[in-house]
């Protein structure tokens, strides 16, 4: 009975994080973008600096009519948002937030492979949406999504493998247990490659070609309305949480910090994740959108060679120190 309660509690906490953190990041994006562009951003909803803007947005989305285009493939069209969103919930289960077994939803033996595999499934949601909408812009968005996946998946896997080599394990808590501060300069190239490839997976600027609103309306999500559209948006922000959390765990040492790693390790994890999320928002405000072929070129001529070099470096250092 105690075990069941423990599992239920963990699931509940992970679900709570899944529901709140993306909203916090979304609100931060509203405000940070606004101030970077010399605006105020939302100021009215909820009173204090528009803190309830996204809740108001959620209420608005829930009230809208749920439209399925007449020519669409109805069932797949309706299923797509769930396929896009749920993988991030599953990934969140495996991300450790502090030291010990108490601070992770579920210890997964092959954690690195689990998170990358399940994140890859989320892309299927965009593809399904793009195809089932019976809309040319949606189809183009779906195509761009697929092309993008082919570009970023390899560097992401290679850099994650580099960390796994360094730690000698593919379990996420295991990697954190093995972490030393000098891994930071050792794996820094891998960290940057992983983060950039992750941005491409999330379709965040500068890699937002699949949803490029000035070219193809909103890509695969053009035909969506109401709650289903909101779920796609939630998937994007949950993706930011997951990507930043994973980069923190794999490359930035997670709960390790200069002090207080035992009791307050989770604060370090949250802090690093928040800084990375800020960088994601910052990049959106700063950089123009790449073209699809430019991403391919960036990936195959820069990210893949860099990640291979990182693996070679990891291997050499590993052999030298052992």
């Amino acid at each position, binding site marked *: 009975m105690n075990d069941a309660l423990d599992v239920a509690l963990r699931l509940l906490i992970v679900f709570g994080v899944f529901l709140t953190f993306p909203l916090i990041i979304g609100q931060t994006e509203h405000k940070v973008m606004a101030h970077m562009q010399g605006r105020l951003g939302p100021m009215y909803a909820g009173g204090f600096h528009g803190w309830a803007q996204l809740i108001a947005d959620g209420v608005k989305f829930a009230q809208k009519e749920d439209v399925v285009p007449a*020519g*669409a*493939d109805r069932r*797949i069209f309706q299923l797509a948002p769930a396929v896009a969103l749920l993988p991030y919930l599953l990934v969140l289960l495996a991300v450790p937030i502090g030291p010990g077994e108490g601070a992770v939803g579920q210890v*997964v*033996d*092959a954690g690195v*492979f*689990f998170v*990358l*595999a*399940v994140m*890859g*499934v989320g*892309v*299927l949601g965009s*593809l*399904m949406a*793009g*195809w*089932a909408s*019976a809309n040319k812009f949606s*189809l183009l968005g*779906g*195509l761009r999504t*697929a*092309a993008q*996946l*082919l570009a970023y*998946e390899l560097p992401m*896997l290679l850099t994650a493998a580099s960390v796994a080599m360094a730690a000698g*394990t*593919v*379990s996420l808590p295991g990697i954190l247990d093995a972490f030393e501060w000098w891994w930071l300069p050792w794996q820094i190239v891998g960290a940057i490659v992983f983060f950039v490839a992750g941005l491409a997976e999330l379709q965040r600027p500068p890699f937002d070609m699949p949803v490029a609103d000035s070219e193809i309306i909103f890509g695969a999500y053009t035909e969506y309305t109401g709650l289903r559209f909101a779920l796609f948006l939630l998937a994007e922000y949950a993706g930011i949480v997951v990507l930043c959390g994973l980069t923190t765990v794999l490359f930035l040492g997670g709960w390790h910090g200069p002090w207080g790693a035992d009791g307050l390790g989770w604060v370090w994890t949250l802090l690093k994740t928040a800084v990375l999320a800020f960088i994601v928002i910052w990049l959106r405000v700063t950089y123009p959108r790449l073209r699809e072929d430019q991403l391919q070129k960036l990936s195959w001529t820069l990210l893949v060679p860099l990640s291979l070099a990182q693996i070679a470096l990891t291997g050499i250092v590993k052999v030298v120190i052992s």
Partner: protein
Amino acid sequence: MTFAQAPHVTLAQAPHVTLAQAPHVTLAQAPHGFLSPTGVEIAFLLVGLVTFGAALVTVTTRQLVHAALWLVVTLGGLAVEYLLLTAEFIAWVQVLIYVGSVVVLLLFGLMLTRAPIGRSPDADSGNRWAALIVAVAAAAALVWVVVDAFRTTWIDLDGPAAGSTEATGASLFQNWVLPFEALSVLLLAALVGAIVLSRKAKEESSSPPVNARGVTKSSRPVTESSDPQVRANPAEQEGTR
């Protein structure tokens, strides 16, 4: 058949062999019956049925994209089966490679060429009876070999996972290094072959599209201007512009 004879099936069913090679797999000294199945065995059977059904729909549906999506269910079901056999690493790699990459590539190809919503009447092959025979024969051969090799092999579900990443890695790089390396050479050859084929096709088809575009782009100036040189060489005119 005993444990030592298992390597006959290496290439076809490598994951099962890694399981069999792992230290916590016991041979059937104690009687293991099929008549009092445990919860895991029931789950294994049910997931197997779902996987089989999804595979059937994959090859019989007339909607191309639906077939690809049912393939996702099939491959995902297979991953769940691996999980139930404690082969966690293999299961996630299955999801990563097949669901995450192969099916996405398949969908990409379908969307790029033709993927109508609704039925494709020309999606049926005239070879369907031959295909059925080949499929049944291949399935029968595989089932026969695997059952014959592993019917006395039982996985101890209570002990440490027999298919964990560590056990899989150790058996792969201690007992099966040669097949592993041979496979990597095969993949490399396929990679090089793909590059060679694509380059060749590019050289052959590179000149006509360029000319065609030059003509269409400069068609308006040709009709408007009376300069005979422009009309004679539209491609060059585009170059100078």
